[in-house]
């Protein structure tokens, strides 16, 4: 198993080896992009926000406390950018991408795995997710879409561990209620 530690890469980038930053982008583009997409519902906005996250992180790399985890620091930057974006009212309905024939998501959604769950139910799930308050939606995305630990969620959200757990469970319960309303 050949690996290079995040902190080693960051140290090399700070010492001038900028190209190594691509390793960090490659490693974490998935979760950052998913966060942005799930929060905004727009593939294009997610692309812009994810890029902005990595650029901001690069610019502020010198301020990164290397005793923290790079991923949670990066994720916090991404989450703040997404929050600002949503506050400015730039959110686009998730259904836009689902119906867009040219969306890169189209191929993924027609995968065999996806066929196990009906399109209709998935549509309901997306709609209900976007009806949640921003705090609850964040918690659901972090915990269930990205499978982050409660410790990471607490650190990223600036909450205590118990408050983070409570928020996740409240979000899940609220999502269940909305799903019942939607499908009932």
């Amino acid at each position, binding site marked *: *198993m*050949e*690996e*290079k*530690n*995040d*902190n*080693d890469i960051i*140290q090399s*980038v*700070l010492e*001038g080896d900028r190209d190594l930053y*691509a390793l960090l*982008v490659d*490693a974490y*583009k*998935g*979760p950052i*992009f*998913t966060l942005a*997409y799930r929060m905004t519902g727009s593939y294009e906005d*997610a*692309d812009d926000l*994810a*890029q902005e996250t*990595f*650029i901001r992180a*690069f*610019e502020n*790399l*010198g*301020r990164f*406390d*290397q*005793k*923290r*985890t790079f*991923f*949670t620091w990066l994720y916090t930057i991404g989450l703040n950018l997404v929050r600002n974006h949503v506050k400015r009212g730039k959110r686009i309905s998730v259904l836009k991408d689902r119906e867009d024939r040219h969306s890169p*998501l189209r191929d*993924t959604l027609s995968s065999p*795995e*996806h066929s196990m*769950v009906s399109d209709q*139910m*998935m549509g309901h*799930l997306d709609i209900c997710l976007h009806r949640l308050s921003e705090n609850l939606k964040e918690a659901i995305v972090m915990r*269930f*879409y*990205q*499978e*982050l*630990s409660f410790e*990471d969620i607490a650190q990223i959200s600036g909450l205590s561990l118990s408050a983070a757990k409570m928020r996740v469970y409240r979000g*899940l319960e609220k999502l*269940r209620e909305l*799903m*019942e309303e939607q*499908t*009932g």
Partner: protein
Amino acid sequence: MKTGIKTEDIREMIQKTPVIQPPEGFTDRVMDQIGLSSPHYSPADKIVSFFTQSRSLNDLGFLAGNITKRQCGYYFIFVGLFYFIVGLVFSRSLEAVSSTGYQTMWLPYQPEFSFAVAIGFALFGISFIASRSVSIGLYKFGIFIYVGLVIINSMVLQMDMNIPVVAFALLPLTIGSVIIGWFLFYVIDRYSHNFIPYKR
């Protein structure tokens, strides 16, 4: 009308949602936008980060937070230095023992054994720091070998000397060596964990 959806059903549905991938060329576009700029890292930033970094009592770059490659390498070198000193102590002690006329098969080789372990750890440490990418499995395997050799050495030594009281001296030494092995394994493991802490 209630449909009876459970929270487990929702979790299952989320599990089955397709993983969203960023568009192709995402990394290249980020790197292009970064261009030739460098991270802001002014002297003021260095001072601020020094005073605002999270710290803990067992910190001082030791086991708290993320462990860097350089730190891992130094831990190996320190253990190597420890065995070098042990080797020197053995050399001196054995001179005194041999002057009494007491002879065994295995005891005279203890300094060499310690020096060999010292050299091994020093090489491990240097290679850990110097290599661009580290093979974690190889170092973990090396630690297992070390622990195994230490235990075998103690057993052989006990059988060779055949003095019951020697076991009381060997036991703490062996346990100490196993703890050192565990510590190095833990450090390596911690180092290897700081990669991708998410699944999707």
